[in-house]
């Protein structure tokens, strides 16, 4: 008897349900759990007050990233509260036998960068972390999503969380991407179409030619941003690109275990005829380099366009007006030529080696615009080493840029990397919320190419004009 055709998401989800509760959530088993210093301390306190242990310490990995400085990491952390959180992570990890890559460890970096690059993230896994951009790991055909601190406590104490199964959406982008159009532009485009809440309640599978041809780095960028349209997460079927990326990484399976895993991973595809609750199909030819003009990631547009009028957006006119006021922009403004003060390249969205290669491709042979402050922050020490090995650092230095040390940095501005009030930043990170990059900061989200174009010209610039044919 043939089974009902299933989606990739169904296959991974259903194989992790320990118990189904009628008119309630599923008891959902977690294969990998990442923790960091900000959202875990209270979970450990909870364990203590209930006198519970950690059920499978070997399935949890700790890294320090959110709070950490991006210069002088060898010195003690100056901010007492940050230092305290870092210490708590170290102490808690040691106490419960959890592997901990703290500041100064050669494998330290942003949690969603170090998981994949060390082979911890694998296809078919369920992965959670107290950070919404855990969706990044979906690029490997894993179900990965962010959780709250109460759930961190659940995973530590029972390796499970209670989750209602989300609905399924498929987003297809077909055709070939044009010059200067990167994975970040694809995701900003999709979010601008669906809005910041358009995928709430759904888990999104990305399919079609554009994603099939995308590198793992690019797929991670896309899955990372899924949460910005409200989705629980994004997932892409693993293929030869995925397997080649994983092979040989430190914690990836080896020898016989590899063959066995590979055979399983090859089954992780959506069956023909499987049903989604919603489908969207886009054409790659309609996408140009993107930039955001407002205070949520859905407020994005092609870089050569004009800011839409409130009535074209369908949302509340007063919320829209509030958002443009905050940015100091007006309906119908062109974005090209707007002054930029800060440029940030980094974060778990665009802090991988390909992103720095892209940035360097524009910067090469040019100079940093004088008034620009640039924060160039690799996602991990491994990325930092690649930047040096590949000669990218030389290109950056030549152009007047400095490379900082890995961490979340200006993505959420918990450390000293804060954009001052009223200043404009073009950032490759994922959120342009009010004050996200520092109180009063104004963020325009874009790709590494757009960030590079702004860094060398000092204004919002179409990167295609600076690219060779």
């Amino acid at each position, binding site marked *: 008897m043939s089974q009902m055709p299933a989606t990739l998401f169904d296959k991974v989800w259903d194989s992790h349900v320990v118990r189904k509760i*009628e008119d309630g959530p599923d008891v959902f088993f977690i294969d990998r759990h990442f923790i960091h210093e900000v959202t875990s301390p209270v979970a450990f306190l909870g364990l203590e007050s209930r006198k519970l242990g950690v059920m499978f310490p070997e399935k949890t990995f700790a890294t320090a990233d959110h709070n950490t400085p991006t210069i002088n990491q060898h010195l003690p952390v100056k901010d007492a509260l940050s230092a305290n959180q870092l210490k708590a992570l170290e102490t808690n990890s040691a106490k419960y036998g959890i592997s901990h890559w703290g500041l100064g460890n050669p494998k330290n970096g942003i949690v969603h960068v170090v998981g994949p690059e060390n082979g911890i993230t694998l296809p078919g896994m369920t992965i959670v972390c107290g950070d919404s951009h855990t969706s990044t790991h979906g690029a490997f055909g894993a179900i990965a999503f962010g*959780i709250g601190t109460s759930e961190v406590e*659940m995973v530590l*104490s029972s390796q499970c*969380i209670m989750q209602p199964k989300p609905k399924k959406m498929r987003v297809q982008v077909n055709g070939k991407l044009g010059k200067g159009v990167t994975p970040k532009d694809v995701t900003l485009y999709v979010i601008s179409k669906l809005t910041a809440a358009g995928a709430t309640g759904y888990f999104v599978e990305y399919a079609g030619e554009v994603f099939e041809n995308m590198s793992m780095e690019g797929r991670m960028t896309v899955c990372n941003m899924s949460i910005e349209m409200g989705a629980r997460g994004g997932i892409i079927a693993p293929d030869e690109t995925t397997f080649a990326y994983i092979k040989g990484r430190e914690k990836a399976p080896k020898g016989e275990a590899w063959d066995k895993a590979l055979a*399983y991973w090859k089954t992780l595809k959506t069956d023909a005829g499987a049903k989604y609750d919603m489908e969207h199909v886009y054409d790659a030819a309609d996408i140009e380099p993107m930039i955001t003009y407002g205070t949520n990631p859905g407020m994005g547009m092609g870089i050569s366009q004009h800011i839409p009028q409130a009535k074209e957006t369908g949302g509340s006119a*007063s919320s829209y007006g509030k958002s443009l006021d905050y940015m100091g922009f007006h309906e119908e403004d062109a974005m090209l030529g707007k002054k930029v003060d800060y440029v940030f390249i980094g974060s778990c969205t665009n802090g991988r080696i390909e992103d720095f290669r892209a940035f360097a491709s524009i910067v090469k042979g040019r100079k940093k615009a004088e008034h620009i402050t640039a924060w160039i922050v690799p996602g991990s020490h491994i990325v930092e080493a690649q930047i040096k090995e590949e000669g990218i650092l030389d290109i950056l230095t030549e152009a007047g840029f400095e490379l900082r040390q890995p961490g979340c940095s200006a993505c959420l501005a*918990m450390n000293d990397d804060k954009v001052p009030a009223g200043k404009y930043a073009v950032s490759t990170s994922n959120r342009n919320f009010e004050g996200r990059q520092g109180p*009063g900061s104004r963020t325009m989200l874009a790709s590494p190419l757009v960030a590079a174009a702004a860094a060398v010209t000092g204004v919002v610039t179409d990167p295609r004009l600076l690219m060779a044919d």
Partner: protein
Amino acid sequence: MAYDKFTILTSSAVPMPIENVDTDQIIPARFLKATERTGFGDNLFRDWRYNTDGTPKQDFVLNNSIYSGKILVAGRNFGSGSSREHAAWAIYDYGFRCVVSSFFADIFKNNSLNIGILPVQVSAEFLDKIFTAIEADPNAQVEINLPSQKITILATGESESFDINTYKKLNMTNGYDDIDYLQAMKGEIETFAAKSMY
């Protein structure tokens, strides 16, 4: 962490008719540095609520003494953005027990239920009715009845039912949480884990 049981809540409400209120507004990242779960209420909506010199912004609703109560009524897509449970802690710590909106972001909704805040999703029309009622009388009482899954504007008698799954409802009305549930099925989880390939 255990929280107070939730059955019927009758209270005036604080109106915040803004859409897409994200968790960075509810509690900005720079206030996430604590290692304990206390004191977040002071920084709830910090940058909307206070000027940079720490003085209250008079035009912000939490600084307007005519509004008070245990219910926060907000525009659609409340709680989008980060997974920080601190956002829910800040709301709870400030004294709210219920947030009403026409749409909630997923993680925020989960986090709230886990710590004892009831997210009540109503239709856009009903949300407008609540705003109108509060505009007419800042002290307008709203009743949230969890056992019968009903929200009522007492002054006008208008009401609407809301959804919550049976499991979560049972937890909220009893003040239990998921950790209690999971601890009770440890054996079943062991067996499951033994078969897992990772």
